[in-house]
């Protein structure tokens, strides 16, 4: 048989997903913008902006002479960050928060999976999940904290419960969409290979639903992260060890403003790091396989 000459639809080699947004090459306006600022690499542009913002921050603190009891300059914050991380004052709260978040997410994910399985498998489960998500999803998840404290007491279980509740509903929605939108032909191929039951789910349905699953975990983590910080702020200390929310509140109580900022920066950095992690996972999987266009920034 002669080799086919029909041209491939995609690029011949594994395409590197574009980093960030690139302007369309043909547009004259973006071409003009490219000549100066826009021609610099994304990392340089962002780095310069960040440096400028920090400089403005420092400039404001030096020039306006605000009280150090309400506002801290970047130098003080950096010193507090370094001291907190080197001395361990920030390490323990961070680990506590991440542990509670992880536990809550694990429980929330397992429940989401179970609910989704029920919803995909049965009509009743589907109706139940739709109704529950419609009712609970609009409710900010910290709002159930008073109830959780009443039910579980002033302990970590209440925090885990609130996080699990925050993670469960958005994840169940994403997972449900993922399983429902698996192409019928893909499933038919699996069945015609003789696959059924768990093997069909593991080898065909789960990977086919992966784009939505990753999106679901990503949304779930974002909800959980916001919720645990908020809950810790309200909740205060749980037993001997408090989390990052408690750390911030505690520092505020002692008017240790640089440490308040250091806690906030830590929270933001963890958020950025996890977001980058999810983006990397997406690039290596669903984007590389053409199951999803472009990596989310």
């Amino acid at each position, binding site marked *: 048989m002669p080799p086919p000459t029909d041209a491939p*639809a995609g690029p011949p080699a594994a395409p590197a997903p574009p980093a960030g947004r690139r302007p369309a090459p043909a547009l004259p306006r973006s071409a003009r913008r490219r000549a100066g600022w826009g021609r610099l690499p994304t990392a340089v542009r962002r780095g310069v902006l960040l440096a400028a913002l920090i400089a403005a921050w420092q400039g404001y603190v030096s020039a306006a002479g605000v009280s150090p009891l309400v506002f801290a300059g970047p130098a003080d914050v950096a010193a507090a960050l370094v001291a907190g991380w080197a001395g361990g004052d920030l390490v323990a709260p961070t680990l506590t928060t991440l542990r509670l978040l992880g536990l809550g997410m694990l429980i929330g994910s397992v429940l989401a999976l179970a609910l989704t399985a029920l919803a995909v498998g049965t009509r009743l489960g589907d109706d139940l999940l739709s109704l529950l998500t419609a009712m609970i999803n609009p409710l900010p998840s910290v709002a159930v904290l008073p109830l959780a404290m009443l039910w579980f007491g002033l302990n970590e279980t209440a925090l885990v419960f609130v996080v699990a509740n925050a993670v469960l509903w958005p994840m169940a929605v994403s997972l449900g969409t993922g399983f429902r939108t698996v192409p019928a032909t893909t499933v038919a191929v699996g069945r015609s290979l*003789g696959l059924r039951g768990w093997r069909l789910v593991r080898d065909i349905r789960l990977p086919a639903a992966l784009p939505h699953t990753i999106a679901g975990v990503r949304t779930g983590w974002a909800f959980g992260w916001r919720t645990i910080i908020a809950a810790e702020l309200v909740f205060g200390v749980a037993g001997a060890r408090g989390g990052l929310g408690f750390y911030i509140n505690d520092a505020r109580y002692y008017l240790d403003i640089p440490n308040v900022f250091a806690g906030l920066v830590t929270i933001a950095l963890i958020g950025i790091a996890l977001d980058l992690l999810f983006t990397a996972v997406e690039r290596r999987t669903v984007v590389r396989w053409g199951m999803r266009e472009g990596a989310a920034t």
Partner: protein
Amino acid sequence: MADTAEASAAAPGTGPPLLEVAGVAVGYNGPDGYTAAVADASFTVRAGETVMLIGPSGCGKSTLLRVVAGFLRPAAGRVVFDGRTGLAPGPDRAVVFQESDQLLPWRTALGNVAYALRATGTPRARARALARDHLVGVGLAHALDRHPHQLSGGMKQRVAIARALALAPRMLLMDEPFGALDAQTRGRLQHDLAALVRRTGTTVLFVTHSIDEAVLLGDRVVVLGDRPSRVREVVDVAGVDRPDAPEFTAARRRLRALLAEEEETAHAPAH
């Protein structure tokens, strides 16, 4: 019935039927109750033969193929494959679909074929070697490690054909596999498929809406009528495999006449 050349000795498909479809009716249970797609279909496919199913749009030819594949149960009638009834989907009737969704996007071309072999019990190393051979056989030696989204429509169909043939099925089921391709690519794939089928002696049941494709690839053509359909006629086109042969023109004219009669009563224009 026009299959008069049935008795010609040594021709492919002179043995007992591998597939017997007898008085089959199929339909769907929808919101408006039962809708009949196929009212009464009977035909046979013998080992080594290529049988084409053709008919106007919506006549249920794909539905009939899905019954043979085991995805649907007939509402009435009998489907006997290799002496068995009550068919479940299985690799002995490998299916090639029209949609590119049939390739698993998370596996490479090689991975798609090798996975099918492993899922049906071939050891890993042997599966990879076999998969490579079959992809080389469809002219994709240069694209083994590409993911489906990096392949053209024609190349995707080649992978699907390689995957189906690698399973060494008793019967290859094809559901308008070239329907979404441009004319040039389709012509090349038809040519290559015919060569592969001839070389491997595979039995094929092939759904198409193209008269030319039916005449070129088929030994016999089962012409279905309008929905809910019945078999109108079975036309013998064995040995007609070149578009410049006079038999080709004759067979094509005959099929066109049969299908045109149907279209006069059709609600929607068909291909």
